[in-house]
Every structure is written in structure tokens, then in C-alpha cells.
């Protein structure tokens, strides 16, 4: 096996930006530490090198800039710096002279750079550098997959306490393994009671993360073991609710009405699934059934180990568990455990979307560069004389190229400055957008030093990229020819036109890819919105209530909800009110169910269904139709035979064409010691796992019969108007029954609906904007190139018309020549779009990445726009007066 190598590009960037005087020492350090880290985990070591390279750019460049600045301020005789400043002055003077032209360039550059800076902020905040842990590469989450339950690798609410112990006690490659459960608690502060997201821990996560509390301390082993009444608060909760009062540490805070000692404040900026309140788990992990899978597990890779070796060890543990337990718990057949760095675990949701957008903005910026180069090339025509005169006066080609490049880099810098401003707006806009769907990225996604540096590099890079070709072109002037022909030298014109046409082809290619991506997403989005939800989401208000277990025991919980729904139904304008443990499209609670007399081997996996606890009237409130039998009624209450309602999908999957009404089911497997439930009716299937997923089998049980175990339900209120208008009246109804009972997660079902497709909507929206921008730029590029070509050929066209060519023929000639690069560009673009469509596929719904209709429409649209853009100058050319045209020389 050969020794692992550091990533080439990152190492190059590192070496290239390093201070030349210390380049060898720095590079040596990088390689030495890489070699050391690679022995533990080559992949992590490579990531480390990339991070080092990126993060080292800023200080190294700052150092070098500082030196250059000092060198200039102390030694004014230095020739280079003087010319640079001179060029810059010249450039700025030029910009002022041609304000509109340069204004357009700076504006398009600003938009392109602003877009890339905005998306880079998101990538940087959410994916590259999401956690301030000292050693983020060593903090891992452990996930599990149970093929027999049909479940893929999951990290959230996916492990049982017993599985946590299997890992904690047997994995020598992991240290300080902790597990936690998520829930809600009521934090009593001044004013109305507040619900906070709470996490209940086995182990002290601060030890795992190797961090200190912001104030105070974490949980001690004794407190964890005894499930002591101690809590930690999230930094932002402490600031917002308690005014950052440092004297609180060691004092009591009231949680669900009980006193808990506040031992510490969690470090700022460390967000673990939005936890506000840290508590200990009141009982030990040994107390739980092996299949109670509602926990998360996190650990730190031991110093001599790597993520890879952790996974090897987890494989072995999983195999041993399978051997020991699969007879009792069938889901262990073929199950697996896997560790992933915590940043990977927590960024999974966004990853695909933000990288697609990052790719898109890169294309947009390249398009802007191609367009700018094109405009500058056209412009260069007008500056031929200037260049020729300067050459004649003795300026070398290098000197001219440098002057022109200084101009384009200055344009890039101005565009960059505008882009940074736009990025601030963009990041704020994104923050506001995602906060409407309950994600808080303030403090994570921001225009920080790295983003500014990245933007500066992009701006300068763009300046060189779009400036180089025009600069080389313009400086290669044929002095004599140019000066003789009053600025319209023919020598370089041919190669310039070729270059311009190539650039148009490139623009069309880039625009094609962007439009194809935007089109595919739009197509998916339209399809998702057309999906039949299986129920009526309009005008339904929901809110969540969690009854404190201490206060509502046994039948008190169901009684509370019965009474509450009765009261709410009496509010004028309320059509019906009910409660349920979940509602479509956001099902989350699954149980294993055994169906008596189900078709044998209905499927290879153990039957898992969504199980939903409801009150009477749930189906009516949500508008879910009854298909067979009956729903819950007066016959069903505590003490009467247990009745269940199943959805059509469950009926179809487990009973085929047979009538399931009257059949029985129970929780667990065939041998489970749980009571039988009789199927009373079948209701229609809803999109219960999200609009973009197929309906999942679901069974419903009545709250009165399930009992008080289920203390957290959503109130579902169908109204005859704007559901938000009913919030105060419904909240009052709750407070009349219990003045201490908070309600939260207040929203309409339609909002939950929209939230489910929000990431898709956001990606579609952004990509749509980028694609539209691309189309405009491509059109401008085509238009300007054709216009210039036509203006250069004025004489020729005039001659043709004078010799009898009719107008339509002239137009066709011009348009045909203009469309050639467009068609070639579209062809290459089609191939490129198909090539990159794989990356998009995970975001698509019901459309493939190579959807012929979408790609065909894009091709037609582009060619149509290109024809229009070239037709205008062609029309003008054909209407030319031949006499005027011939005189033009």
C-alpha cells in the first residue's frame, strides 16, 4: 500500500499563497502533520489539509499585502507600484468617461459575484465549518439501518438505549459516548409559560466535545448516574429569557413547575438539533426495551483511531448483536451501524441543495465573465487607435496588457464590492426565508472573513479571466494598418470575431445548463404541487399541546382533550375540532404491527406502519374520507373492545382485495403479548410522509382507549375562514381549562404543507432566478456581438444591397451566421446538462434528469431568444441605405 497523499489542489493553493520567505517551513509543517494524521484516518487528514489551505489564505495574503503596503509607503521610488497606481488612475478615468458601459459591466459582475458570495456563505456556514468544536473531525454521530424494517441509515431518533450500551461498552475506538432523547419542557420565566426544546442526556456531551461550558459546568458522572435535577441552558435562551444573568448559576430554575439546579450555560454557537435546555435522563439506559428507538448517539474518535476504524469495530458489534438478539428481535437481521462526522450528520439535509446552487452560481459567474469579455472585445475596437498610438510611442506589448488587465481587475474589484453588498442582503434574505420554515441560521450563515476573502479572490480571478483575452487581443494591434484606416484595422478583426463567436457559444452553453436545471426543478415543483394529498388541508389550524405527566395521569389526559375539543367546537366559525398525535403530511411515529390473517409474506420487511392516536372527529376535521366500515364513535371508549381504523394503503398492502373490516391487529410481532385491536373501518390514504413520497400504511387508535400515555397531541381545528384568526379564541379555550398550559407549534395545515416542500421551493426559486439572469446575459451577449459584426460589415452589406440582394436575404445571412455559435453552444450545453443532471436527481420529483420535454423546451427557448437578439440588428442592417453604407468608410 502506498502512503496516502495530500490533496493536490489544496496543497498547491497553500503553497501558492504562503509567504515566500516561509513557504518551505509552512509546506513542510503541512506535510508532516498530514502524514501524522493520515496514519489515523487518511480521509480526515485530507479534509484537514483542505481546511488548512483555505483558512491559511487569509493570514498569508494579509501579511503579504501589509508588507507590500509598507514597502510602497516607505520606498516611493519603487517602479512597479508606481505603474500599477498609474494604471489604476488611468483605468478609473476611463470608467468615468464611459459610465454607462462600465456601469452595466459592474452591475452584472456585482450580481454574479453577489450570488456566488451569498451561496458560498451558506455552504461555509452549513457544510464547511458548521461547528466550533476543537476537533470537529473526531466528533461522530452513530446511525443505524434496519433493512427488515425497510429503514435506511438514520441518525435521528433511530437508536435504542440497549444499542447505545452496545456501542458505549464495546467500542474501544470511541471515547465519551453519549446518548440523548429529545422532547419538550415548559420553562417557567416571567410572563406566560414557555415551551423549550429539551434534550435528556446519558453522559456529559461537553466532555465528548472537549469544550468548556460558557459559564458554570456540564453534568457530573454522579448527576448522570442518579438522574439528578440539574439543567444547562442554551446560550441564546439564557440571553433572551434571563438577560444573560451570570448570578443564576447554581440557583434553581423551574421546569414543568419543578425546581432544577442550573449548573451551566452551554457554549455559544454550539447548536445540537436546536436544543434549548439540557437535562439528565431520569432513569438509566438499562430500564428500556431493546427496541425503544428514539435516541441519538454521539462519541469522540479515540486519539489513536479513525472514523474508518470506528466503523470496522461497529460492524463487528452489530454482527454480535445480530447473533445474540435476532431470534427475539427480527429487525436485527442484516442491520448495520455506521459512524459519520457530526458535521456530515447534521448537514445531510441541505447538502445536495446547496451544492447544486453553488454549482449554479459558478456557472452564472462564468457566464458573466464570458459576457463581460465579449463586451470588452467589442469595446476594444474603439480603443484600437489608442493602443496603436501608445505602441507607436514605444509602449511594449507587456505594458499594454498590464494596463488593460489592471482595468479589468479594477472592474472585477468594483463588481466584487457591489457583490459583497448584495451578499449581505442575500444572506439576510435567506435567513428570513428559512426562519419562516423554522430553521435558524443566524450566527451560522453570515458574511464572515472567509466569505469576504473568497469573494475578493473570486472578484480578482474574474477580472483576470474576462480581461485576459480582450487584453491580448487589443494589444496585438497592427499599428500601421490601424493608424491608416482610421481605427478600423482589418488584421485582427477576423480572430477577434472568432473569439467573440466562441464566447457566445460558451454563454449559450452555460445558459443551457442553468435553464435545464431550473426547468427540471420547476417541472418537479409543479408536479409536487399537483399531488393529490388525500385530504383537505385548507382552513385547518393546528397547535401542539403537551400535558405535563405529573398533572394529567391515567384518564385525565383523554378527558382534557375531549373537553377541549368540545369547547373549541363551540367557538363560532369552527366547523369541527379534534386532536391527533400527528397529521399529514408530517408523519413521524412508526410502530411495528402484526396483522392477524394478513396475506403471508405480504412483503419481505416486518410490517411497520405509522400509528396515530386520535380523538373522535379527527377524520372529519382533516377531510379524510371513510371508505369502508366506520370511524370511531360512541361505541368506542375506555373499557369497550379496542377498535382501530386503518388507511387504504395498509388495507391494500396487508389484505389485498379482502375486506379488512373485522380483522385484528396488535402492536409488535406475532408473539407479542399485547392486546388485539379490531379493525372497524378503512379511510382514504393521505400523503402522510410528505408530498413527494407515496402514502404509507397507517393505523389509527382512539385516545380514550390508548390512555394517558399519549400526553402530546396536536389540536386540529377546521374553520370556515382564515384559520389564523381563530388562534386567540382557541388559545383562550385552552387557558380557561388550564391557565398554565402552553400551546406551541401554532400553524395551519397548509403551512406544514408548504414547509414540507420549502427546500425544493427555495432551490427552484434560486435556480429559476439564476437561469433567468443567464438567459438575459446570453441574449445581451448575442445581441452585442451581432450588432458589432453588422456594424463592421456595413460596407459589405451595403454593397450586397446595391448589387440587388433583397432585404430578407440579407437578414437571413446575418441571422444564420449569428445562430451558428448558438446552435453549437446549445448542443454542447445539452451534453453538459445531461452530464451534470445526476447531481440534481435527488432533488427531482417525478421527473428524470434527462427529461426530453424540459431539455427540448430549453433548446427551443434559447434558440428563439438568440434569433430575436440577432434579428433586431439584422433588420436594421437590411434597411440600410446602400449609399450611406458605402460612404461609411
Amino acid at each position, binding site marked *: 500500500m502506498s502512503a496516502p497523499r495530500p490533496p493536490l489542489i489544496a496543497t498547491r493553493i497553500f503553497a501558492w499563497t504562503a*509567504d515566500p520567505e516561509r513557504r518551505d517551513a*509552512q509546506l513542510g*509543517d503541512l506535510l508532516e502533520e498530514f502524514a501524522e494524521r493520515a496514519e489515523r484516518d487518511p480521509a480526515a487528514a485530507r479534509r484537514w489539509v483542505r481546511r488548512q489551505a483555505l483558512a*491559511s489564505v487569509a493570514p*498569508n495574503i494579509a*501579511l503579504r499585502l501589509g508588507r507590500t503596503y509598507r514597502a510602497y509607503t516607505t520606498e516611493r521610488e519603487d517602479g512597479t507600484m508606481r505603474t500599477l497606481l498609474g494604471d489604476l488612475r488611468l483605468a478609473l478615468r476611463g470608467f468615468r468617461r464611459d459610465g454607462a458601459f462600465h456601469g452595466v459591466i459592474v452591475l452584472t459582475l456585482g450580481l454574479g459575484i453577489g450570488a456566488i458570495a451569498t451561496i458560498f456563505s451558506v455552504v461555509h456556514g452549513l457544510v464547511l465549518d458548521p461547528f466550533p468544536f*476543537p476537533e470537529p473531525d473526531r466528533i461522530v454521530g452513530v446511525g443505524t439501518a434496519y433493512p427488515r424494517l425497510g429503514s435506511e441509515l438514520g441518525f435521528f431518533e433511530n437508536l435504542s438505549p440497549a444499542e447505545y450500551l452496545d456501542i458505549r461498552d464495546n467500542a474501544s475506538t470511541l471515547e465519551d459516548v453519549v446518548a440523548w432523547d429529545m422532547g419538550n419542557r415548559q420553562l417557567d420565566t416571567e410572563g406566560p409559560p414557555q415551551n423549550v426544546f429539551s434534550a435528556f442526556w446519558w453522559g456529559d456531551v461537553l466532555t465528548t466535545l472537549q469544550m468548556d461550558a460558557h459559564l458554570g459546568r456540564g453534568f457530573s458522572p454522579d448527576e448522570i448516574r442518579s438522574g439528578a435535577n440539574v439543567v444547562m441552558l442554551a446560550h441564546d435562551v439564557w440571553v433572551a429569557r434571563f438577560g444573560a444573568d451570570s448570578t443564576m448559576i447554581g440557583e434553581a430554575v423551574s421546569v414543568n413547575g419543578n425546581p432544577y439546579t442550573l449548573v451551566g450555560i452551554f457554549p455559544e454557537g454550539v447548536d445540537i438539533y436546536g436544543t434549548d435546555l439540557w437535562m439528565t435522563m431520569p432513569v438509566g439506559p438499562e430500564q428500556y426495551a431493546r427496541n425503544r428507538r428514539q435516541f441519538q448517539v454521539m462519541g469522540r474518535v479515540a486519539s489513536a483511531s479513525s472514523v474508518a476504524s470506528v466503523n470496522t469495530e461497529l460492524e463487528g458489534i452489530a454482527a454480535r448483536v445480530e447473533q445474540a438478539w435476532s431470534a427475539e428481535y427480527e429487525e436485527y437481521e442484516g442491520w448495520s451501524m455506521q459512524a459519520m462526522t457530526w458535521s456530515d450528520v447534521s448537514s445531510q439535509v441541505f447538502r445536495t441543495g446547496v451544492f447544486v446552487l453553488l454549482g449554479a452560481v459558478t456557472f452564472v459567474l462564468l457566464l458573466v465573465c464570458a459576457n463581460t469579455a465579449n463586451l470588452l472585445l467589442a469595446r476594444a475596437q474603439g480603443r484600437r487607435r489608442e493602443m496603436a498610438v501608445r505602441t507607436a510611442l514605444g509602449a511594449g506589448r507587456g505594458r499594454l496588457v498590464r494596463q488593460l488587465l489592471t482595468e479589468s481587475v479594477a472592474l472585477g474589484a468594483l463588481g466584487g464590492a457591489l457583490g459583497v453588498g448584495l451578499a449581505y442582503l442575500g444572506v439576510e434574505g435567506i435567513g428570513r426565508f428559512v426562519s419562516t420554515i423554522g430553521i435558524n441560521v443566524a450566527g451560522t450563515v453570515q458574511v464572515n472573513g472567509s466569505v469576504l476573502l473568497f469573494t475578493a479572490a473570486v472578484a480578482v480571478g474574474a477580472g483576470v479571466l474576462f480581461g485576459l483575452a480582450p487584453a491580448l487581443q487589443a494589444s496585438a494591434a497592427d499599428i500601421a494598418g490601424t493608424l491608416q484606416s482610421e481605427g478600423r484595422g482589418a488584421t485582427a478583426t477576423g480572430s477577434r470575431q472568432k473569439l467573440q463567436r466562441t464566447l457566445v457559444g460558451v454563454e449559450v452553453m452555460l445558459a443551457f445548463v442553468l435553464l435545464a436545471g431550473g426547468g427540471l426543478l420547476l417541472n418537479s415543483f409543479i408536479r409536487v404541487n399537483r399531488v393529490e394529498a388525500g385530504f383537505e388541508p385548507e382552513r385547518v389550524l393546528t397547535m401542539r399541546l403537551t400535558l405535563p405527566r405529573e398533572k394529567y395521569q391515567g384518564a385525565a389526559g383523554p378527558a382534557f382533550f375531549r373537553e377541549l375539543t368540545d369547547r373549541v367546537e363551540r367557538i363560532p366559525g369552527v366547523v369541527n375540532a379534534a386532536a391527533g398525535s400527528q397529521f399529514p403530511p408530517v408523519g413521524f411515529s412508526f410502530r411495528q404491527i402484526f396483522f392477524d390473517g394478513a396475506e403471508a409474506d405480504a412483503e419481505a420487511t416486518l410490517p411497520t406502519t405509522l400509528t396515530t392516536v386520535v380523538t373522535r372527529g379527527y377524520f372529519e376535521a382533516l377531510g379524510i374520507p371513510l371508505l369502508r366500515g366506520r370511524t370511531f364513535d360512541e361505541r368506542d371508549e375506555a373499557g369497550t373492545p379496542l377498535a382501530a381504523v386503518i388507511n387504504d394503503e395498509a388495507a391494500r398492502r396487508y389484505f389485498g382485495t379482502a375486506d379488512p373490516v373485522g380483522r385484528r391487529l396488535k402492536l409488535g410481532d406475532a408473539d407479542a403479548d399485547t392486546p388485539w385491536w379490531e379493525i372497524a373501518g378503512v379511510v382514504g390514504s393521505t400523503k402522510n410522509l410528505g408530498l413527494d413520497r407515496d402514502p404509507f400504511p397507517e393505523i389509527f387508535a382512539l385516545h380514550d382507549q390508548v390512555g394517558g400515555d399519549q400526553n402530546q397531541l396536536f389540536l386540529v381545528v377546521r374553520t370556515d375562514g382564515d384559520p389564523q384568526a381563530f388562534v386567540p379564541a382557541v388559545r383562550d379555550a385552552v387557558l380557561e381549562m388550564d391557565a398554565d398550559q402552553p400551546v406551541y407549534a401554532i400553524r395551519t395545515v397548509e403551512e406544514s404543507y408548504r414547509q414540507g416542500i420549502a427546500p425544493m421551493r427555495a432551490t427552484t426559486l434560486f435556480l429559476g432566478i439564476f437561469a433567468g439572469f443567464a438567459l438575459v446575459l446570453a441574449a445581451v451577449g448575442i445581441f452585442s456581438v451581432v450588432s458589432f459584426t453588422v456594424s463592421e460589415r456595413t460596407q459589405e452589406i451595403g454593397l450586397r444591397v446595391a448589387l440587388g440582394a433583397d432585404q430578407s436575404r440579407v437578414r437571413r445571412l446575418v441571422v444564420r451566421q449569428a445562430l451558428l455559435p448558438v446552435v453549437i453552444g446549445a448542443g454542447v450545453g445539452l451534453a453538459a446538462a445531461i452530464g451534470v443532471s445526476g447531481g440534481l436527481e435527488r432533488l427531482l420529483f417525478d421527473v428524470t434528469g434527462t427529461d426530453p420535454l424540459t431539455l427540448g423546451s430549453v433548446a427551443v427557448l434559447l434558440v428563439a431568444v438568440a434569433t430575436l437578439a440577432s434579428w433586431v440588428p439584422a433588420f436594421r442592417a437590411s434597411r440600410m441605405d446602400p449609399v450611406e453604407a458605402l460612404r461609411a468608410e
Partner: protein
Amino acid sequence: MGRGSILGEFEQLVLLAVARLGGDGYGVTIRKEIASRARRDVTIGAVYATLSRLEEKGYASSWEGEAEPRRGGRARRHYRVEPEGVRALHAARGMVDRMWDGVDFGSGPA
């Protein structure tokens, strides 16, 4: 104190790490010293930029060590603190100490 400027926090960290390593530290060990004692993961670029500034101010000096194969044949650069640097460190600490003098948070906000 060179040029009348007080050492920045990061400069202090780097210079103290150099001091702790007893005149034999180089990039890798300096970073590790800062990581283990100050619990800060600092980048190679940041450390060297600071070291260069410290050298320019005369607070530290460096010399080239042996080239090593696992460093791609590149030499280590070792750093030591100069007397000027020691003075600057004391000055920085003295300033903070003088500010702390008489500050008491023990009984909460007055």
C-alpha cells in the same frame, strides 16, 4: 516595547507557545501547544503570519533545522523568543493585571 504597541491576544498565544517550547519549537509543535493548552485550533497560515510579524518586530528569531523526508525534504524552522519579546509579554500581562486589580464579580453586579 517595540513601536509602543501592545501585543495582540493571538500574538501573545504564539509567543507564549514559542516560549513554552524552550527555544526548540517549530510550526507543528507550536500549533499543538496552542491547541492543547489554549484549546484553539489555529491554522498554519495564521501561526506563520504572526511569527513573521513577531520576527519583524524583533520579538522572536528563527533558524533553519534539518530537512526531513516526511516533510517532503523541507527543513523545519525553529523559533525562540528574544529579550524584546520577553519584555513585550511582561508588558502585556502587566497591563491586563493592572486592569483586573480591584475588579470583583464575586457578589454579582453591584
